[in-house]
């Protein structure tokens, strides 16, 4: 199946960004462009998901050059799922940002940058070419560099510096691995790479596997490489942090899952030590992330540390390398994107309402702003994995997959970390929502006295929370979909055949 529709989620936001710069003086027009471009992406992504689920992989060759020569755009079920979730979240957060009073509205560059970011995210999901993935990452990152330092405040510059330098190191490593991969195989097309990597020396292949794992692990925030994340994310403006937390790390996770399953499948060639490494990394990521979260006092920083521990769960699913495991990872990723973004949007609301996101200077919100409290409670309980919510289903699927594989150690870690997650969520709850309002002499003047927050902010947060609840209502179909996606992922031959045509083995 070939279709030019694949390019739409990449091309439309980029053109939207250009248009957005042109209409920069008129803020209303900019907003209109952002919402229109992202809405088109959402619709097209949903169409793509439906078609992929019916017909299997969709491939488009840019410029009409056939696969190994030109840049192939490939969408399989996993990519389509990610596209739908990410574009929906991007659209919702864009509306949230519009609803938020503040500096954002005054900055001409916010909307164009946001669209470039959206385009980069979509491009990372759609591309079937490793070098193109690098370009997509750079698009996304370049936009994120500016977004994270948009205000130019001292803490932003400080955090932005860490973020930019770390990302650049990762990018340099990415180019290095690309160069070595090209030298070894003579291609950068992922399907072609998968094909040719099977023939090279296993030791070399392990090396490449680890190199790419490190490159994407930095972006995803895996265990030894996560340290930059909690320092840099929380300083960005609220909606930006939400998008970074929800999406950017998950793009890294996507790249890990894509490359590890497609190019370095376990089994033949004896790469089976690789999945053990992944499980160890996953366990360490979970533990360190959650312990880091417990030590923090700022709501946003607690949530930022939780990103790390949650990444561990996704990698655990991948590390099991079974259909149920990877399916659980896919489910976990989409659940996490929605829930995490919702939590950061709530943090933005708290910040707006109480004038601070520091737990010691916020309190009593359950009485003064019950809407915010309710909006926090649902995704927080979901993140911790309590029964009726999507987080429970995602964790249950993971635990089930782990037990069926006989990896009880990682399951024990996952369950214990879930408990600690609940603990630090209660810490936010008691700190920000229950009493203790004036335990600390507040240095932050309580500026805003509106109920809950601006209606647009509350509504968008509510819609994300509603989506996360709908995940548990339609858990059956969604889980079946991720099951099919996982089967695709673990059968790289399908991907290779779709891209290279019938000629490929």
């Amino acid at each position, binding site marked *: 199946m070939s279709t030019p529709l694949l390019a739409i989620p990449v091309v439309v936001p980029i053109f939207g960004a250009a248009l957005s710069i042109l209409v920069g003086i008129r803020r209303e027009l900019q907003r209109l462009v952002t919402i229109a471009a992202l809405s088109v992406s959402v619709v097209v992504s949903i169409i793509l998901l439906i078609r992929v689920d019916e017909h299997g992989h969709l491939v488009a060759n840019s410029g009409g050059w056939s696969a190994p020569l030109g840049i192939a755009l490939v969408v399989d079920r996993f990519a389509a799922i990610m596209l739908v979730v990410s574009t929906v979240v991007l659209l919702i957060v864009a509306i949230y940002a519009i609803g938020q009073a503040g500096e954002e509205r005054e900055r001409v560059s916010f909307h164009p940058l946001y669209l470039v970011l959206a385009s980069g995210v979509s491009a990372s999901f759609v591309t079937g070419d490793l070098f193109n993935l690098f370009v997509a990452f750079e698009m996304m990152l370049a936009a994120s560099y500016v977004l994270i330092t948009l205000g130019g405040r001292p803490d932003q510059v400080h955090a932005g*510096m860490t973020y930019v330098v770390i990302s650049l190191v990762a990018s*340099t490593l990415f180019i290095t691995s690309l160069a070595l991969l090209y030298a070894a195989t003579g291609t950068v097309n992922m399907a072609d790479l998968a094909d040719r990597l099977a023939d090279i020396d296993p030791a070399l292949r392990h090396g490449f596997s680890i190199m790419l794992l490190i490159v994407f692990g930095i972006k995803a925030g895996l265990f030894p490489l996560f340290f930059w994340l909690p320092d840099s994310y929380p300083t960005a403006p609220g909606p930006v942090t939400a998008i970074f937390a929800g999406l950017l790390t998950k793009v890294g996770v996507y790249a890990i899952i894509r490359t590890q399953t497609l190019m370095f499948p376990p089994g033949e060639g004896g790469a089976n030590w690789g999945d053990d490494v992944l499980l160890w990394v996953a366990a360490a990521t979970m533990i360190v992330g959650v312990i880091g979260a417990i030590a923090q006092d700022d709501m946003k920083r607690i949530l930022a540390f939780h990103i790390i521990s949650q990444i561990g769960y996704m990698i655990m699913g991948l590390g099991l390398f079974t259909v149920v495991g990877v399916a659980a990872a896919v489910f976990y990723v989409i659940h996490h994107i929605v829930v995490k973004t919702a939590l950061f949007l709530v943090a933005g609301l708290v910040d707006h309402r109480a004038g601070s996101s520091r737990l010691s200077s916020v309190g009593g919100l359950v009485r003064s702003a019950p809407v915010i409290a309710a909006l926090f409670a649902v995704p927080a309980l979901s993140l911790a994995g309590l029964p009726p919510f999507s987080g429970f289903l995602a964790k249950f699927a993971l635990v089930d997959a782990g037990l069926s594989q006989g990896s009880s150690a990682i399951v024990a870690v996952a369950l214990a970390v879930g408990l600690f997650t609940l603990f630090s969520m209660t810490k936010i709850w008691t700190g920000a929502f229950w009493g203790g309002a004036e335990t600390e002499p507040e240095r932050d003047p309580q500026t805003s006295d509106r109920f809950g927050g601006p209606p647009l902010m509350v509504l968008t947060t509510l819609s994300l929370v509603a989506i996360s609840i709908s995940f548990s209502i339609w858990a059956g179909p969604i889980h079946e979909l991720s099951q099919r996606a996982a089967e695709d992922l673990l059968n790289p031959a399908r991907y290779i055949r779709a891209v290279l045509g019938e000629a490929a083995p």
Partner: protein
Amino acid sequence: MSLALAAVTGILFAAGTWLLLQRRLTRIIIGIGLLGHGANLLLVTSGGRAGNPPVIDGSAGSPAEYSDPLPQALALTAIVITFGVTAFLLALGYRSWQISRDDKVEDDLEDRMVARRNELDGPEGPVDDGDPDTNEFEAEGDPQR
């Protein structure tokens, strides 16, 4: 891949890594630049032996004797990206210098606070150290640094 280019790549990587580990921001930025050059050079050399004709004009026999254009195109893309991002990094470094009049990289504020809270071992930690910015979108930031 010629030995000279391999050596140059190695030196660039080594020098870049060393500079990256310094405490001064300017050195870090130069280090990033060197690392980027090293990676780009590696990309160019991954195309095979140097010295083959780049343009198909019949001077060489088989297609294999022409130099591979793809890594050069990739390197070009990578150079443009590295250039743009380095420019941004320099601007950020300048802004950082404007703020602090010093290009030393500081420890993270929150990390210091957490560390200090442990030392004090009490719920009321350093009172003077919080962030006084009330709304994150208010232009006047925190003057704590």
